[in-house]
């Protein structure tokens, strides 16, 4: 069962090959068996999962089942779930239970999907290795000594090991695409505003976007159909009709104009990763695509701009965690200031504190113009680079990440080294564009992801381009042998 995609499971459920309850039990069993080695879940909700599986089966008997009814999935532990702990992988929220569902949770529940649990992540989504979790690091199923990427590392590892057919993620600077790449699965960061941020604990509001993490582009389209849509509770939610993301999957891509930014293929890129990417581009050429070199002249400054904007927003977004109304409170505070300082000092991990410090500094009096305002101006330049390029090409392609998964602990001493590697993904968030990562092959036995970026609202196009590749390749079907059985 666990070798199957959502599309296949949906069919099997419809045909009565097995029930949702059987499916759910199977995956819960796999989590029990394998997650001790992966640590991809923070919370597993066996009881509620079985209950929703039963009601999904009941709905099916009554002829009320949709394409996603009864299919198990997992939520990144950044989405609030009514009555089930939402920790954001932080000591700060270790015991926090939201009395409401995030819009994404509400929507997937409404489809009758069965939530198996909440996946591990970098604390407050800050990180790209999943080493910064209060609940311990997640392991890469392809090599347990390696990181799965982050911040949605738990979702990526769980889907890659087929502990769950699909999961949600959030992406502020690559947090869906990068772990998808490092774990050999498919992940899309939709156009900013497509998926409601209501109930999704904010890291950097103007960059955060939720999206699906799946085995295939087709599955991503199925899940995005359920996740996307206008939400009046989110002022930044797009009030625009949502297309059927599966509608264009089978469109031929002959004549597709692919832009390869020359800046993507320079020093810093692991040559082995570069080779895999070039082979994938060749595959697209075979399918009739036209390859052009393009330029994103400000791309090298996306990192510096991002590491001002994201920390600035986070320093303010995380001010609400003060030990007063919810969350961690230090023992025996001497006074109010002590309550604030120790609750936050003890409740947040190192990486979160580092980013709050950077952001506070960048916004503080005397530095605002030099850092924050300058970064906002850079953001416009970077965004305009994309606009220019998309006058000439339909999509941009390149590596999702400059290397394959690295060893746990390898970069943890040096935060800057980690920031430097987000090179390919963060500019996409700054511009608010949709970005897809699909498995493109292997280097040193570890997966490599191909990133496909399109203009605003071209999420369907990206899924179509990804799906066509997957119709002609088998990288997305590879399962780490240890977890295949």
């Amino acid at each position, binding site marked *: 069962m666990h070798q199957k995609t959502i599309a296949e499971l949906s069919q099997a459920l419809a045909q009565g090959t097995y029930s949702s309850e059987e499916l759910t039990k199977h995956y819960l069993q796999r989590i029990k068996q394998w997650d001790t080695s992966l640590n991809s879940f923070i919370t597993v909700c066996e009881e509620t999962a079985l209950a929703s599986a039963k009601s999904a089966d009941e709905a099916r008997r009554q002829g009320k089942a949709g394409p996603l009814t009864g299919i198990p999935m997992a939520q990144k532990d950044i*989405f*609030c779930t009514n009555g089930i702990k*939402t920790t*954001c992988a932080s000591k700060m*929220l270790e015991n*926090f239970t*939201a*009395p*409401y569902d*995030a819009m994404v949770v509400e929507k997937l529940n409404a489809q009758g999907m069965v939530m198996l649990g909440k996946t591990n992540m970098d604390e407050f989504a800050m990180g790209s290795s999943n080493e910064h979790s209060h609940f311990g690091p997640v392991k890469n199923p392809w090599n347990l000594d390696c990181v799965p990427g982050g911040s949605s590392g738990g979702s990526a590892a769980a889907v890659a090991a087929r502990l769950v057919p699909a999961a949600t993620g959030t992406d502020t600077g690559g947090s869906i695409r990068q772990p998808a790449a490092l774990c050999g699965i498919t992940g899309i960061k939709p156009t900013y505003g497509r998926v409601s*941020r*209501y*109930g*999704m*604990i*904010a890291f*950097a*509001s*103007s960059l955060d976007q939720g999206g699906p993490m799946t085995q295939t582009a087709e599955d991503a389209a199925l899940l995005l159909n359920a996740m996307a849509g206008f939400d*009046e*509770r*989110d*002022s*930044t939610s797009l009030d625009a009709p949502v297309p059927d993301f599966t509608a264009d999957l089978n469109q031929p891509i002959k004549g597709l104009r692919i832009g390869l930014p020359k800046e993507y293929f320079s020093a810093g890129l692991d040559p082995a990763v570069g080779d895999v990417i070039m082979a994938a581009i060749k595959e697209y050429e075979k399918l009739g695509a036209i390859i052009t070199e393009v330029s994103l002249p400000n791309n090298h400054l996306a990192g510096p701009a991002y590491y001002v904007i994201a920390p*600035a*927003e986070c*320093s*303010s977004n*995380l*001010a*609400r*965690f*003060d030990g*007063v*109304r*919810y969350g961690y409170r230090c023992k025996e505070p001497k006074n*109010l200031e002590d309550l*604030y300082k120790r609750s936050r000092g003890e409740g947040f991990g190192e990486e979160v504190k580092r980013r709050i410090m950077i952001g*506070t500094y960048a*916004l*503080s*009096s005397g530095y*605002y113009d030099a850092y*924050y305002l300058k970064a906002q101006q850079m953001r416009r330049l970077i965004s305009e680079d994309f606009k220019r390029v998309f006058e000439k090409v339909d999509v941009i392609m390149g590596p999702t990440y400059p290397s394959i998964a690295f060893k746990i602990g390898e970069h943890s001493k040096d935060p800057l080294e980690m920031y430097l590697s987000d090179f390919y993904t963060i500019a996409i968030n700054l511009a608010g564009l949709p970005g897809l990562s699909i498995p493109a092959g292997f280097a040193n036995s570890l997966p490599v992801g191909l990133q496909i970026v399109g203009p605003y609202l071209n999420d369907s196009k990206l899924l179509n381009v990804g799906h066509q590749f997957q119709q002609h390749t088998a990288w997305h079907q590879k399962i780490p042998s240890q977890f295949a059985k």
Partner: protein
Amino acid sequence: MEWETVIGLEVHVQLQTASKIFSGASTAYGALPNTQACGVDLGLPGVLPVLNANTVHMAVKFGLSVDAEIAHRSVFARKNYFYPDLPKGYQISQFELPIVGKGHLDIQLDEETVKRIGITRAHLEEDAGKSLHEDFQGMTGIDLNRAGTPLLEIVSEPDMRSANEAVAYLKTLHALVRYLEISDGNMQEGSFRCDANISMRPKGQSKLGTRAEIKNINSFRFVEKAINYEVERQIQVLESGGSIVQETRLYDSDRDETRSMRSKEEANDYRYFPDPDLLPLNIDDHFIGEIKKTLPELPHEKRQRFEKAYGLSTYDANNLVASRELAEYFETVLKESKAPAKLVVNWVMGELSAALNKESLDITTSKITASALAQLLARINDNTISGKIAKTIFEGMWLGEGDADSIIEKQGLKQITDTSAIEPIIDEVMANNPQQLAQYREGKDKLFGFFIGQVMKACAGKANPAQVNELLRKKLQQD
């Protein structure tokens, strides 16, 4: 040295919306603690602000009423600081691009003097909660019901030169927001709060002195007292060779003094930046035009009309337009009684005001409605009763004894205007006072008043005084 006082005011006006500025929680006053604080107001993780349309309407309405520029694009910014009554660790406010730009407000200082006070800006923001300092196991309790209540902060230019001017500005502004129906202006409940920036400079100098800011003064009387105290304090400091420290001070009404709030003073660095959860607020001319249509007659317009149409003095007109309800009351009485405007003013500002003051009521809770007073004044006007009798009837009406006509009827207070009924009374009085009559006729004119008094006494005050006057004069001279 002669000093000049320079005052600028920041007024926080609570907008009278049903729901909060960024959430759907109620703004009703006086609920049990934290029962009107929803997820957004509490700053729970993941919840987001969405702007209340009504607050935008109200801000624009205010802007138009003070001839201000309305920003076609304004931006909400976060003001970051930690305080237990500030749940998110930041206040959503407007910083660089406020919704209302430069405008002005004219204040009437006396019969002749009008002064124009500049308005620097007005912006929308959310209120904070309340800290309750009663002892809870040695701790402070936090009630967040007020958190997220919409405020319009109105900032004036430093154009005022005395506590009197400051109070006149505040009263004018207070009347204005109530005319516009954007705030109930209730000062006890904190719907109209004032911070005053005060500095001194040698007379003739144009450069401003260092200012102190006095926070949260919640009545007109306290504004006056606080400013006067602060002015004295600053002059004392300056004249003894000291200098004013730029700081926030708190007015203590019990001790009638201002004192430094050092705890709030330490190195505030608010790190304002555009709120990424909210988009820029775009307002087009059509939107502004639609709101313009809803503007009521403003206090100064009403005052001018009262002066012109009813021939009132500036003083009377000013008093009447101080509140929209009072002005409406006056006009209702005037229309329904058909009495002269001056008579109506005298009754409204005289008897009625006195009665209201005595029981701490205001015009909206008056025990005599405008229509009831109109009936009374109509009876004066058509000579059914005299002004003196009217006062007795007014008292009866105030005590709930019925309307004017029924009291007149019941107590037989109808004025005697029939000459044939008055003449015998005069004849009788003359016959009963031969001595006084003789003296009068010998030239002691002063005794005329004595005869008036005797006649009115004999008829229990019911005879029409003008007629008594005329008939008596005639008869005294006749024989």
